[in-house]
């Protein structure tokens, strides 16, 4: 174990991935499963090459990504100001937060069909589902981030005669940023789920969700696996991008 801990991250990741693939193949071989029940890693690899070569994988991926990104942005743009309002105004919190919390008790899969009734555009109804899923964690983290600002720093800003704009720019924004970015990391992966749920409800002929449904209906289980892997790669990339942004913005956190 000690030897493994001392290795670079990419090597340990590679080793764990290799174990996963080998275990998977062993399960398929020893279990004698048919391809449409559980395809092996080689079947999935072959299928991935096919859909990559005929351009389907890229085309549908780009459509799903084009729903994820605006969904994430819109979710942030609505949640961040609302979070600011809730953190700053006890009255607003008392009036709004019960409904916000209650809305989280309803699964997104139950709300999504409603959105497709209200929003006629297939594309925008999917974006809306993604935005809705992203909304709550961003909102909560915004509130928590702003509440974490020490009261004494507000007092300091007041005795220095700072106006509200200065208090926001020089105190609240930088103080809440780490917690907000942590929320954005969660939101980035949830946006992928949201876009996919949107596509399940509105599966009109495009997107990875559509491809997934058709693959399952025609028992192309290896293609289902290809799509799952692709979704995981998209989610990991988005998470990585936010983590990279975090590293740039919060450089002061790394100094020790």
């Amino acid at each position, binding site marked *: 174990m000690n030897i493994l801990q001392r290795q670079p991250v990419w090597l340990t990741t590679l080793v764990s991935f290799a174990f996963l693939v080998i275990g998977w193949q062993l399960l398929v071989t020893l279990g004698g499963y048919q391809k449409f029940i559980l395809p092996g890693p080689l079947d999935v690899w072959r299928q991935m090459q096919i859909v990559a070569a005929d351009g389907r994988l890229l085309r549908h991926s780009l459509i799903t990504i084009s729903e994820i990104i605006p969904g994430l942005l819109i979710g942030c743009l609505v949640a961040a100001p609302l979070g600011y309002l809730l953190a700053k105004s006890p009255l607003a919190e008392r009036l709004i937060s019960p409904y916000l919390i209650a809305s989280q008790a309803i699964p997104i899969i139950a709300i999504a069909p409603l959105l497709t009734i209200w929003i006629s555009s297939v594309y925008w109804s999917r974006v809306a589902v993604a935005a809705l899923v992203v909304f709550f964690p961003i909102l909560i983290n915004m509130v928590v981030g702003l509440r974490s600002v*020490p009261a*004494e*720093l507000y*007092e*300091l*800003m*007041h*005795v*220095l*005669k*700072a106006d509200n704009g*200065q208090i926001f720019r*020089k*105190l609240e924004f*930088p*103080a809440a*940023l780490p917690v907000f970015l942590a929320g954005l990391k969660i939101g980035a992966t949830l946006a992928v789920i949201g876009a996919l749920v949107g596509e399940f409800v509105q599966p009109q002929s495009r997107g990875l969700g559509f491809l997934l449904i058709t693959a399952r209906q025609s028992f192309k289980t290896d293609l289902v696996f290809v799509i799952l892997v692709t979704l995981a790669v998209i989610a990991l990339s988005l998470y990585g991008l936010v983590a990279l942004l975090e590293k740039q913005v*919060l450089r*002061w*956190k790394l*100094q*020790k």
Partner: protein
Amino acid sequence: MSSPFLTAVNISHTFHDLPVLENISLEIQSGDFVALVGPSGVGKSTLLRILAGLLRPSSGEIHMADGSRQEPIGLVFQRDNLMPWRTVAENIRLPLELMGMNGREANGRVQAMINLVGLAGFEQRYPAQLSGGMAQRVALARALVHEPLFLLLDEPFGALDALTRERMGLELLRIWEAMPVTVLLVTHSINEAVFLADEVLVMGSRRPNTKRPATITHRIPTGLPRPRDLAMERTAVFQDCVTAVRAAIESGV
């Protein structure tokens, strides 16, 4: 004689129906160093916040010398309350930024303060990289960089070890002597109060068996010459003053 720097008249304060402060009147002369002592929970910090203009008293009035009310003041807390995302130099620069001062003038003032509190070489460090004493020096520099007329210190050395605390007290005196600033220091330490201040105000309640509502029960001039040094702590004047302050706190009245 010119009018006092700060005059508080009949300040009373009630917090959620609980009377905390009662009929506090005090005068602070310009350039004075005044210490405020009393048992914990007596309302020292509440009074400091009222004098800082952060809290409006339930009744009573505060007058300050012409224009001083509008000037930004200096404030230091027990915790350094530095902004962890700003370097030492950026933390000290904050009051100047808020006043709209930038560029060479601001840089010059920040560097002068860094030198004054003995932090040269640490300009680019972040607060997480500083010891408690160093962080509190930065907080002190931040409180003074805009050359306030009034400096309020709320247990500024309370979180430091005894040796660092003693040294910080001496540094504070050195800085105060170099700047035309009026100081109000809230502290738990009687020794610290007597050693640093011209006058020690003792807070307590005039009613038996309770801390509230509190008022200023005694004002005790320390009578020590300036500049001060640690040897004075062994003099009879110092010891007598400490004894008097301790008796005043314990008597309550």
